[in-house]
């Protein structure tokens, strides 16, 4: 593979195949931990670490893992890396560990990670897999940071509160507390996806797609109509 090919593996996750705004994957952490920009950044980086680690190991083991039990194998590898991140944050960033809470363990079932294992790492060599993990992780982190920044600025009139680079908006700015709640998360994400569609001049996705879902091969379709359509081969 040429240098340009390697670069593509990294850059595709940033915008063109952005897992959050284009792929609509990993919705739960995207909504749950983005009420503060600093939590969003922490979640993004933790997920990126797990993604790079699992892509690396799965790519190394891609000829060893039998196809019939690959899903449980991937889940064990991913859960192992999640446990490592859990320990690291507990030791070095206890405040972040506290505010991410259960969602740290739930990185295990983030479908971005299983999706990349199933669609990329199990078919590719080690270096492209690491670059893919870095790019997808960076794309996820950037989208989370964007959503977190919007929600924190509108909801609390601060940005990156609790860090050395914290910015406090002038007093008197209205604080729309709705943006710190889950409802604000849904709304911000919807508006950003619409904006991404305008900027890329593409129609926003019509549905939360099954294309990148790791269970897509086994799943027989979500609604009876889709199942029929799939049987007839029209989808």
């Amino acid at each position, binding site marked *: 593979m040429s240098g340009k090919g390697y670069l593509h593996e990294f850059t595709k996750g940033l915008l063109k195949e952005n897992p959050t705004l284009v792929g609509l994957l990993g919705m739960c952490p995207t909504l749950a931990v983005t009420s503060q920009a600093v939590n969003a950044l922490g979640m993004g980086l933790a997920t990126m670490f797990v993604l790079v680690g699992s892509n690396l190991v799965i790519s190394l083991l891609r000829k060893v893992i039998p196809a019939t039990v690959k899903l449980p194998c991937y*889940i064990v590898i991913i859960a192992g890396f999640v446990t490592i991140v859990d320990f690291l944050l507990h030791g070095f960033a206890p405040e972040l560990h506290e505010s991410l809470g259960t969602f740290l363990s739930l990185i295990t079932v983030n479908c971005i990670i299983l999706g990349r294992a199933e669609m990329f790492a199990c078919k590719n060599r080690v270096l492209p897999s690491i670059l893919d993990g870095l790019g997808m992780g960076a794309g996820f982190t950037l989208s989370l940071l964007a959503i977190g920044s919007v929600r924190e600025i509108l909801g609390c009139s601060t940005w990156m509160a609790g860090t050395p680079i914290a910015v406090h908006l002038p007093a008197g700015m209205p604080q729309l507390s709705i943006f710190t*709640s889950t409802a604000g998360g849904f709304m911000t994400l*919807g*508006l950003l996806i619409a904006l991404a569609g305008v900027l890329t001049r593409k129609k926003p996705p019509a549905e939360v797609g099954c294309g990148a879902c790791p269970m897509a091969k086994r799943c027989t379709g979500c609604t009876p109509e889709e199942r029929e359509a799939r049987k007839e081969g029209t989808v």
Partner: protein
Amino acid sequence: MTTLQTIVSIFLASLLTDNYVLSRSLGICPFLGVSKKLDSSLGMGAAVIFVMGCAAAVTWPIYQLLQRLGLEYLKTVAFILIIALFVQLVEIAMKKLLPPLYRALGVYLPLITTNCAVLGVTINNIDDGYGFGLAVWNAVCVGMGFTLALVIFSGVRSRIEAADVPEMFKGVPATLVAAAIVSMSFSAFSGMI
């Protein structure tokens, strides 16, 4: 608090004030993916109630075992493996023993392994320190809350499909904004308990 009060407050919290989908943002993928039709919402909801209750019943004793061995940090690995294994077993058993039920719920089972609400409820049960009975009750109630959110939202979505939405909001953005409004209306329940 007496046991009865705890039981009632768990029920109200998981259905209304602390709904997993609408206030804790867990299980969003199936919430957005399967809520298009009322019957698929009900099917998915029933499958989730069943799996959540059983997963809580299976993971609770496993955690006691891990605790005795001093291996609490393995809970994420152990729980997800058990849930994946359990869902697979239920699928096989249901296919053989209860074909009509399998036709109704079976298609949703593979999706449940990666439903973060299931892993979430088992971990929250441990963090909240519930005993065995309360853990299973909490899981069943959370499943009912999930079903409630799905059923309400499938009604909202059928109205969006008929509505004239601006071009840039068609599809997922409109769905998400509608979810925001449903979630906002549920936040009115806070303070009830």
